[in-house]
């Protein structure tokens, strides 16, 4: 995996020193909060309800054991024994003292990590398919390009004060697991007819109060033109993006108000000025970065088939976990494993210090020291020999992380909500926990099949509710929490924004309403293979509205 070069080391060390000095001056009263706030935000330090919050970047979601162990150490030493993995493949700590943050950043730097550009109106952590480098269906690993984008966008002088934050996601497979169409720029790495690598380029996707699906502005951009084309997009946005209204400042609004044809013309015109200049990526440079992401040497382990077969007979739990949380690897003797951070009734995305350390051990022992954070708030072991799956499962059982619910209804994305977040209007986590408990039976969850349920505690949509097959948005109404339900959203290669189904539900009603929706789906699906999202797209909202609200209409 990527290792810092000399430049990275110096850059991060210099930033730690700079921010440590800023913190000391702030604590000494030499700079005011107004002066300090933008500086702390540039370094990932927010102020939440109970305390400060530190958001640490996990570039394209890739970690090694040493790094995860350090996150566990930070959780134990400076925080309250846990961390929260987020939908941007980052991790957040909820209780750090400002006075400890210089020491935390120094510890992070010792394992090539930092919190730079995890806030502010700049280009944020570039995200990628969490199965990158392992997936059987990808044309190439998208992470070298994410790394090129990271290097280019880090303290980019022209793009550090954009109209608003800017998020880029990259996938290397037709099946989009990185939700690229919900990003400011979405890149789909593909091959053209000549077998050359390049990108389909999407712009203007986003969630928040104005959800928009990204528009494709180029079907094939040669890989060498990645930076010049992204620069052209950012320049057009930086010039014309609105700065008068925070809520209309994202590129999605510019694309919508300008029209996709016109903005494509503007980007292409800008690009003509840039494409043959210094931003053109030399072939040798791309291949050099790619070498950093060279896959581990996967020796043949043909004994895996027999081992898995026997272990299945031995353990029903293992068998279920294998069916649900283990996916095909490009090497037939290997598999990619999802470690669910969605135990029944647990907080989605939270992991304790000792769990992080144990997962680091598992990665080092069985997974070539590679780990990923998924945007669905789980951890991934991308390369595990099938022969070792039972040992990995047993180790995960020991630390309570073997829940076999990947892609099922209890694999819920939830933002921190009003339990932590200063912007939230309602709680998300307790709703996720109650729904998870209601559907605790794995047999029932498997009968329901793939169902993506996503919960946000305010309209900023950090919990991705707009693109949940079932989305829940918590709002405050007359001093109480109210939960609005959307149906039909999706964040894959067929991205769609869910539709509001009707009046909202109280916290006491919402789980019953979700169950009603699920029962309605089970009653109308053509067969067990027809997924919730497919059934919804076939029948539309009417049967669900009828099930949820018909009684009220009659009563009225």
């Amino acid at each position: 995996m990527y290792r810092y070069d000399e430049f990275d080391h110096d850059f991060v060390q210099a930033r730690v020193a700079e921010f440590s000095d800023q913190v000391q001056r702030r604590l000494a009263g030499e700079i005011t909060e107004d002066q300090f706030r933008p500086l702390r935000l540039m370094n990932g330090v927010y102020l939440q309800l109970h305390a400060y919050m530190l958001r640490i970047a996990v570039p394209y979601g890739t970690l090694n054991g040493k790094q995860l162990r350090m996150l566990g150490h930070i959780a134990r030493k400076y925080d309250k024994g846990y961390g929260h993995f987020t939908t941007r493949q980052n991790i957040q700590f909820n209780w750090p003292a400002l006075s400890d943050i210089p020491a935390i950043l120094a510890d992070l730097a010792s394992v090539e990590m930092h919190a730079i550009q995890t806030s502010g109106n700049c280009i944020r952590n570039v995200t990628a398919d969490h199965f990158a480098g392992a997936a059987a269906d990808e044309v190439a690993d998208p992470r070298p390009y994410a790394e090129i984008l990271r290097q280019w966008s880090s303290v980019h002088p022209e793009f550090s004060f954009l109209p608003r934050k800017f998020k880029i996601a990259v996938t290397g497979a037709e099946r989009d697991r990185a939700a690229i169409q919900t990003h400011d720029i979405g890149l789909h790495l593909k091959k053209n007819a000549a077998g050359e690598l390049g990108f389909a380029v999407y712009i203007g996707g986003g969630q928040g109060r104005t959800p928009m699906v990204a528009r494709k502005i180029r079907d094939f951009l040669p890989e060498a033109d990645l930076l010049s084309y992204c620069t052209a997009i950012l320049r057009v946005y930086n010039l014309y993006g609105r700065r008068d209204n925070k809520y209309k400042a994202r590129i999605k609004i510019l694309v919508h108000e300008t029209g996709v044809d016109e903005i494509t013309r503007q980007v292409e015109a800008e690009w003509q000025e840039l494409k043959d200049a210094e931003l053109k990526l030399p072939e040798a440079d791309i291949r050099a970065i790619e070498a950093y992401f060279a896959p581990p040497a996967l020796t043949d382990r043909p004994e895996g088939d027999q081992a898995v077969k026997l272990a299945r007979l031995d353990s029903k739990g293992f068998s279920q976990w294998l069916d649900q949380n283990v996916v095909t690897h490009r090497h037939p003797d290997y598999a990619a494993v999802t470690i669910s951070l969605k135990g029944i009734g647990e907080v989605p995305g939270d992991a304790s210090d000792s769990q992080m350390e144990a997962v680091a051990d598992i990665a080092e022992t069985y997974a070539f020291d590679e780990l990923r954070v998924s945007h669905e708030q789980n951890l991934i072991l991308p390369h595990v020999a099938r022969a070792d799956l039972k040992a990995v499962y047993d180790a995960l059982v020991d630390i309570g992380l073997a829940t076999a619910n990947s892609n099922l209804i209890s694999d819920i994305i939830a933002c921190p909500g009003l339990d932590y977040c200063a912007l939230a209007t309602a709680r998300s986590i307790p709703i996720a926990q109650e729904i998870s408990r209601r559907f605790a039976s794995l047999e029932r969850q498997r009968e329901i099949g793939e169902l993506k349920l996503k919960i946000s505690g305010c309209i900023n949509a950090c919990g991705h509710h707009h693109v949940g097959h079932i989305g829940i948005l918590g709002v405050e109404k007359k001093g109480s929490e109210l939960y609005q339900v959307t149906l039909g959203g999706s964040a894959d290669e067929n991205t769609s924004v869910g539709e509001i189904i009707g009046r909202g539900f109280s916290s006491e009603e919402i789980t019953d309403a979700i169950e009603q929706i699920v029962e309605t789906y089970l009653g109308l699906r053509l067969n067990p293979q027809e997924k919730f999202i497919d059934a919804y797209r076939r029948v539309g909202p009417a049967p669900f509205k009828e099930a949820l609200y018909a009684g009220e209409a009659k009563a009225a």
Partner: protein
Amino acid sequence: MKILTANRLTDGIAVWYADGGWAETVDRADLAHDKAAEDRLEVIGAKAYADNEVVDVNLIDADVVNGAVEPVRLREKIRAAGPTIRSDLGKQAA
């Protein structure tokens, strides 16, 4: 009625103004019963902010319940107690 709340600069912990200082729990917070008292609290808050003791200073609605001061809004109740999903964290854990 209003009370004055903020987060302490050094560690970010939520605090409430009580008995001439910043308390880590809300129950004994100084209550403002009228506009003049609110103005006094605001002056105190502005000075503490300027003196770099606290950040994010706010006057919030409060009631007295069973002799203890309690915030009115859910957001402020959660700030005063801790996350509702982790009774081992925040003020409620003490």
